[in-house]
């Protein structure tokens, strides 16, 4: 006969106001098997927990039901307390009187009765509970960082400096990300590449960091501490070990008219190329879609020129599988393109550009060497209009959120333009100026007060071309909505920050949640901002939400600290909520008949085949066996098993049916 204690919590007014807790405690005394039932204002408080622990000892309880809030909230608290009092923690269950009863019902007799019923169900479960013991699993102390922008580089450096191995995976030929494309950075106007490239080189040279550029994550198996990650190393079409990065192949490549991604389409590159001069690694790739050899079967100029014979036209993609203990996602963002704006001409006007294109125009390493020239005819633009919130905070364009970085970079752009074209006029159409950061608002004021950028509060309805000018039709809402028309030479749209291409696909590969805009979801918006809901996978930077560089770097260091913390132990403790296949004495061995339907249903490949052998070595039968290290406890195999040979610890058939029978 069980000796179960019931502890009913008022949760202050949360439960107490609608449920008569004193009466509930009284009613619970009559449940068979319950030997002790009390109520208390706050069970989760220290005195509350102590009261429970003393009762466990005094009444020699072998099971406990805490009737309080959601187990999501305090199950670990009460299980730990029960464990400290000497009973197995898994003999403690929670009845959710708050979310399931007091919060959703009116005060009354029926509500109190329901509370008692909920407890009765859990008492029946506890009667069937078995003591369980945490599972220990080893940790592979190598981290993988996906995304080699400033966030990914920071994570990799911090973990590597913490003494652990890091694999940094980047899909493009070089690390550096968007930051390497920027001209200057706000609010200090220091040169972006000047501060980034030392970090890039440091990452490349760090003994604990392995760079995998031009590579993409293809498959992720396993769980925290024990992931198996398959990475596709895309063929660069050259032997990286032989290539010295001399650049002769690039010079001689006859195919020079390919639109340059790094310069956002404002410049051209060759078919064999490095994205930018400071690329890390400084090894070219062949763009097989545009290479003359791959299109016509002739050319091979690069191969003839290469002094080390490093070109490999027949090289193929390579799949590499790695053992990884923790993963950090730092895959960044993309910008909405100008063709998403019907009212601004669907991207057909060359002189309407986005923010990243402006960065390239302003950059000393850009296609114009930092001289302000508009894309259509190369003339120096005398009037430039900047439009903030282009596509952001715009339900009609599917982006209701604020892109966060545009206010600041628009101020920076206007300033940079004025520094380069002293006689030029810069107008900014804005809705609000969101400059909440250290020295941020001062920066915007400087643009307005010192560089005389004209800020106009209003959106732009339409832009069209007339006599080589762009006619910008806006309104000034600070002048009562008066229409304002500006004849501009160039228009810069601060287009919306969006989740990166294929981010949803990647999220599904890694089993992490994402929001309706494709940004990865943090485990808790306030208290767990760098973790995902999947243990062992962390977040850094704009793959989670729009972020600027300082925030990305801070979050990257936060994620790195989480990984280093995880790697500080050789073993991990896991909840013993796992499935088991029953075993019996010979000659039955198990009720498992070896159909292995469960194997197909298991999402974690946790079910193995075990051969039962006679002493002679002859295989008598093949049974299912569950690897407790891989099992995550979803219970899908249990429901699938035709002979009920599998059960889920903590949610066994016996427990669940006992609960049902009490309803």
């Amino acid at each position, binding site marked *: 006969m069980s000796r179960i204690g019931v502890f009913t919590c008022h949760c202050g007014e949360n439960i107490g106001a609608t449920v008569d807790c004193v009466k509930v405690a009284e009613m619970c005394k009559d449940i068979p098997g319950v030997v002790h039932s009390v109520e208390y204002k706050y069970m989760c408080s220290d005195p509350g927990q102590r009261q429970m622990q003393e009762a466990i000892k005094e009444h020699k309880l072998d099971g406990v039901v805490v009737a309080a809030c959601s187990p999501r909230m305090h199950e670990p608290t009460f299980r730990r307390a029960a464990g400290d009092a000497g009973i197995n923690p898994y003999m403690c269950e929670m009845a959710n009187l708050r979310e399931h009863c007091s919060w959703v019902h009116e005060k009354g007799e029926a509500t109190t009765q329901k509370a008692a019923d909920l407890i009765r169900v859990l008492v029946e479960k506890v009667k069937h509970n078995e003591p369980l013991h945490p599972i220990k699993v080893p940790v592979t102390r190598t981290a993988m960082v996906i995304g080699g922008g400033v966030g990914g580089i920071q994570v990799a450096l911090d973990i590597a400096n913490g003494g652990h191995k890091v694999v940094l995976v980047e899909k493009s030929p070089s690390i550096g990300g968007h930051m390497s494309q920027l001209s200057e950075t706000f609010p200090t106007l220091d040169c972006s590449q000047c501060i980034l490239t030392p970090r890039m080189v440091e990452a490349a040279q760090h003994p604990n960091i392995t760079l995998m550029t031009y590579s993409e994550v293809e498959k992720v198996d396993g769980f925290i501490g024990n992931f198996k990650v398959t990475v596709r190393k895309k063929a660069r079409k050259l032997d990286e070990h032989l290539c010295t990065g001399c650049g002769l192949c690039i010079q001689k490549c006859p195919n020079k008219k390919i639109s340059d991604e790094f310069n956002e389409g404002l410049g051209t590159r060759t078919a064999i190329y490095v994205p930018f001069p400071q690329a890390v690694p400084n090894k070219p790739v062949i763009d097989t879609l545009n290479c003359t050899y791959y299109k016509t079967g002739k050319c091979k100029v690069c191969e003839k020129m290469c002094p080390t014979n490093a070109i490999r036209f027949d090289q193929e993609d390579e799949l590499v599988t790695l053992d990884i203990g923790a993963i950090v996602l730092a895959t960044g963002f993309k910008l909405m393109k100008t063709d998403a704006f019907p*009212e601004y*001409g*669907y991207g*057909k006007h060359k002189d309407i550009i986005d923010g990243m294109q402006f960065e390239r125009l302003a950059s000393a390493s850009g296609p114009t060497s930092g001289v302000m020239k508009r894309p259509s005819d190369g003339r120096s633009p005398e009037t430039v209009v900047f439009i903030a919130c282009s596509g952001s905070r715009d339900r009609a364009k599917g982006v209701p959120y604020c892109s966060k970085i545009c206010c600041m970079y628009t101020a920076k752009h206007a300033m940079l333009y004025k520094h380069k074209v002293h006689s030029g006029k810069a107008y900014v159409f804005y809705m609000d100026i969101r400059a909440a950061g250290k020295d941020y608002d001062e920066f915007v004021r400087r643009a307005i007060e010192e560089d005389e950028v004209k800020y106009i509060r209003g959106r732009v309805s*339409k832009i*069209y071309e*007339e006599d080589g000018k762009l*006619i910008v039709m806006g309104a000034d809402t600070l002048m009562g909505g008066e229409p304002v028309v500006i004849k501009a030479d160039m228009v810069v749209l601060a287009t919306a920050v969006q989740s990166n291409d294929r981010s949803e696909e990647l999220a599904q590969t890694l089993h992490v949640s994402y929001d309706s805009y494709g940004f990865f979801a943090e485990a808790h918006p306030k208290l767990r901002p760098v973790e995902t809901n999947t243990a062992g996978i962390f977040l850094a930077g704009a793959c989670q939400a729009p972020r600027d560089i300082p925030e990305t770097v801070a979050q990257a260091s936060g994620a790195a600290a989480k990984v280093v913390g995880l790697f500080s132990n050789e073993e991990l403790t896991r909840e013993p909520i796992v499935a088991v296949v029953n075993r019996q004495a010979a000659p039955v061995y198990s009720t498992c008949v070896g159909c292995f339907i469960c194997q197909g249903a298991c999402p974690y490949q946790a079910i193995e085949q075990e051969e039962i052998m006679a002493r002679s070595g002859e295989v008598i039968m093949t049974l299912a066996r569950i690897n407790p290290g891989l099992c995550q406890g979803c219970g899908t195999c249990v429901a699938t098993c035709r002979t009920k040979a599998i059960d889920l610890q903590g949610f066994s058939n016996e427990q669940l049916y006992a609960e049902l029978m009490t309803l």
Partner: protein
Amino acid sequence: MRIGYYPGCSLLGSSREFDESARAVLKALGVELVEVPDWNCCGASSAHILNHELSIALPARILALAEQAGISEILAPCAACSNRLLSAQQELEKHPELLPGIEKAIGMPYKGSVKIVNILEVLDRLKVLISVLTTAPFRKKVASYYGCLLVRPPRVVNFDRPEDPQSMDLLLKAVGATPVEWPFKTECCGAAFSVTRTDIVAKLSGKLVQDAVKRGADAIVVACPMCHSNLDLRRAEINEYLQKEYAVPAMFITQVVGLALGLDPKALGLHRHLVPVAFAETAGVQS
């Protein structure tokens, strides 16, 4: 091809040539028009300003009559009419609670089964046939002018793209014309203010005429009677406002297609314009 036909009031009066040219062109293309029996006015831009229910009941009666006549698809060449018909149909779809009152007002059942199409949609379906049958390519530079009601509001009309639409341009290319690249395809001409605020019409339509000419258009091509009457009947006021004599004609898309098919300019009602279509007489002999 057989299709229901709702000409609407303008096509019986001030825009007779739209009716004439539409009928002539569709006949030449082998389309049989079935006119909605005893149709009434759709309420145009007046009904919805004064009474919401009336603005639904008037088009609902037309659609119900079409249903009774066994018409499954109805062509309303007038952009205002097709817009009003679509608006009423969708309003009744969204708010079925209005239906009993509307059925009582129109005195007959309404099912909402009729598909409403505009003239560009119908001509677009026949585009291949049109280019095959083109005997006198319309080798002119044209400004294709869609106006408001064909493309807006996009949620209601769901036709072409709301800014810089393309369907009329492609149709004009199919008959040999060269559409000019211009930004005012869907700017408002002043619409229903033709009589009451002619000053506004002169200003808004003036902007259109001036820009079309500046971009080298020989003609402004329209698909809406209101646009046409503002650009044609109000040309005197426009020219007075602009202080310049603009002679660029405004033509209906059906007239342009008709000329390309080699139809008689008179059958297309080209003689009815106040701004003469100077090249119409010679259009037939060009190749």
